[in-house]
């Protein structure tokens, strides 16, 4: 599997650390809604198909990436920096990408 890090370019999966389900939203830090916390900490969407997930380029720039990957085919349809909510980024900064 290759993940195209928007900063470093396409890199082998062994350079990345999986950080799990990217569909979870963390409750407000001061929230005392235990059900919401429980859902955030323990419940996972786990679809068979397109999956929003977080990967860290641990063996590279260490950025966290929001990746959409198909869990049946392992095909990746989009990658962007996790910190940039909502910005499309697959293949972005092509000039900086090294094959």
């Amino acid at each position, binding site marked *: 599997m290759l993940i195209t890090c928007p900063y470093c370019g396409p890199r082998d999966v062994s350079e990345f650390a999986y950080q799990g389900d990217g569909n979870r939203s963390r409750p407000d830090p001061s929230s005392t809604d235990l059900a919401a*916390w429980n859902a955030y900490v323990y419940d996972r969407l786990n679809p068979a198909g397109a999956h929003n997930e977080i990967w860290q380029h641990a063996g590279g720039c260490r*950025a966290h990436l929001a990746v959409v990957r198909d869990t049946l085919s392992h095909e990746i349809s989009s990658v962007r920096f996790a910190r940039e909510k909502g910005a499309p980024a697959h293949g972005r900064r092509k000039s900086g990408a090294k094959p």
Partner: protein
Amino acid sequence: MSPRRRPSGGRIDRLRTIRFTFDGTAFTGHQGDTLASALLANGVSLFGRSFKYHRPRGLLTAGVDEPNALVTVLRGDVREPNIPATMVEIHDGLVAVSQNRFPSLAYDVSAVNQLGGKVLSAGFYYKTFMGPVVGPLKGTRFWMLCEKIIRRAAGLGRAGHAPDTARYERMNAFCDVLVVGSGPAGLAAAREAAASGANVILAELDPQFGGSANWSGETIDGEPAAAWASDIVGELRDQANVRLLKRTTVWGYYDDNTLAAVERVSDHKASPAKGAPRHRHWTIRAGKVVLATGAFERPLVFPGNDRPGVVMASAAQRYANEFGVLPGDKVAVFTNNDSAYRSAVALNNAGATVATIVDVRAEISEECHTLARQCGAELIVGHAVTATEGGKKLTGIKLAPFTEAAGALSSGARSVEADCLLMSGGWSPTIHLASQAGARPLWDAELQAFLPPEAGKGWVGAGAFNGTFSTAQAIAEGFAAGRVAADLAMVEIGTLPDVEPAALDPRPAPVFEIRAKGKSFVDFQHDVTSDDVRLAHIEGFVSVEHLKRYTTLGMATDQGKGSNVPGLAIMAEALGKPIPEVGTTRFRPPYAPVSVGALAAERFGDLKPERLTPMHDWHLDNEATMYSAGLWFRPMIYGGPGETIEQAYVREARVTRETAGIVDVSTLGKIAVQGPDAAELLDRAYSNVFSTLPVGKARYGLMLREDGLVFDDGTTWRLGDNDFLMTTTTANAGKVMQHLEYFLDVVWPDLKVHLTSVTDQWAGAAIGGPKAREILAACVTGTKVDNEALPFMGIVHGEIAGAPVMICRLSFSGEMAFEVYSGAGHGIHVWEALIEAGQPFGMVPYGLEALGTMRIEKGHVTGAEIDGRTSARDLHLGWMLSRKKPFIGSAMMDREGLVASGRLELVGLVSLDNRPLSGGAHIVEDVDMDNPHGSLGHITAACFSPALEKYIALALVADGKARHGKRAHVSDPLRDRFGPVEIVSHHFFDPEGKRMHG
């Protein structure tokens, strides 16, 4: 030269004689021979024994699909089992032995299994060996007795115990086009892709490029096919954008066009060239893959089809044309298709007598009649072979009239003498890699074969892989595939190459099995017969996977390359369904077996890196016994002559508490936390508050996981308003870094903080004990270290041995202590300066054992207590849970299960029988040595305390705090240690902390 060897032709070099042994007998062969061809030339016909019945077996094939002729290659004590003789290139000094036989290949006692006959049918072992329900052999005992015998009879070659001394290496490669297979189609593809300037890798399984061109006997554009191939290879070799890999098995097709291949670099040599590995593991990332992997000829299933001397027609042709060896003198042929006629002609041209061609088809083409006449064979159409004759060597065959439509034999049987029977049951394209890439094969009723779908996302096929058996068409497909793969505009090839002789009709008759009396083998190695397949049908194991698993069809080392389709066909017939409805299995890596060593590559013998502190050599020079801690090495003790471990650590700890000791703490995780929001991040990450920490001070901090359990602890130093140095435990350094990075990058991207792992940048030495301050003062310049300049948890900067240092007064040992950090490059100088300064005071270096002893005495927690299941309260660290702010884990830490009674809590234990305690021992109220039960918890760490002069321990015990002052027992049945203890507070020593506060 042997009588079976032709005087000329093929890839062998007759001027170079090579000596080798097989089963202890010396043989000679020629450069270019495989073990199979060389032994065949020497008249050897018996090569192996089958798995279950130990039947004598000869060569069936000439390639990677060989099921019978498996040998063990010996290199000194190192054994390499289960290598097909067809894949072993001989070299001087090669030592090979046969397998799965006792006492010898010719006389194998286990051949008695054949008498078991129908009792040993498919799956028989599921129905018996269960043994008695009562008595001494009840339960699993009877089966385990039987299993011992079965295991000895099963298995093939024997693996050795001598470590392999060979070297393996890994290479990464990138290319625009990877061409797998170098037959005419592959060569055409590689040439076309390379001409465009694309980076091309051409991988060939065999030692010689060319594939079928090496043995087809065809001419291409007037030139012998082998010469045509070698011309193209010559052209490619001169191109800088082409890499040629022979002896290379492309075995795995992984995601995103990552392919794995193993190159057998040195197996064909007596010893590897200087610097060359035995095998090379290639990871190839290809833009596009051209699959030109050819096809396998399928056996026919009929009684006695496994007798030595029965060989695949194309394999016989290969032996004759490629190796100049005749597999027999008097040859018969049994076929359901045209291709075997060419093989017959090839054998005839090579000097064999082709006695008979038996064809199941009643009507055959005019070309076939011509070919039969050409080789002088008696052509018997509408017949089938119903038996083979001979013992361990074929002497003749029996045949009978056969009606294709009914699949039935009729009377009129006759015998034919032959010492070699060529068989051909049609061809199966080698679609394994495409299947690995997710392609679903499609059944082609014309070709009676599974073909790949049109093309995959990352690959394109050519030649026999596609079911294209005409060489001219295969070259045209290769040309087209090369252009597609290199991303070139599609153009027609122009004129097809002129290939002579013209291609024959590739369509076989749909005949897979001749049903007659006797064992007819489908899977040769595993002895799966057609009756076994039918038994599976009777018992309902009809899906292809059940068939495979129940009968072991296709599970042998040849992975069913020849047997899959015949097996499916027989099942389909039993079910009365067409073959594609029975299905085909999805192929998985590897395409052919590959060595474990190759895949481990340079990590063989070097599994993980070693992390060494800057003072590592000093420790070794000073008698340290090293302890492996994760990837790190740390001193356990600095043992004096004749000292036991306990004596050493007790001495080290005692001297430290009496005067001073020094310990290397460089392995602690260190993270620079910097930026305007650094304090805010720490407030969120730690359970206690850090924003109030003044510059120049350090604080002990506790981190929880999101689920509210303890994650890690350590001190964090405020070096400036926006500049912190966080320390973590050695074990969790990486995890804490990742944890903080995740929150910073994903959850709180608005925080302006930068994290840098600086574990390796700083060397650390902790010096503690009543004399520590004096020692430090004796060697540090540029700062005072008195109580005023350097109060508890204070930080100062100075110099030691000319190197800048940062000193923090904090204590793990409970003594007046200082952590001295310097740049890693200065670490050893600072350490030596501290050692020298300590000498007048009798300071000792101490290791992990003494460190552990002093922390146990103080009741400090480490990874043994922070085991991922304990809460802050369990460890009496509830006081560190700030109620003023939320932090990671604060929302979840009060769930009912985490505040319930009965949880394991940290306590101290004192041994009441004055005997040592051990980590991992359990605690019970009452000892029951015969039937241990009622565990209350366990010891996490134990030592002899020089401060208390007692054996003590830390433990996690249910409702521990409530048990202070109570008696309990250690119960350690594993080490046979039972005895009374007193449960006490975990603060054994100096609970008020007077010593460290000074």
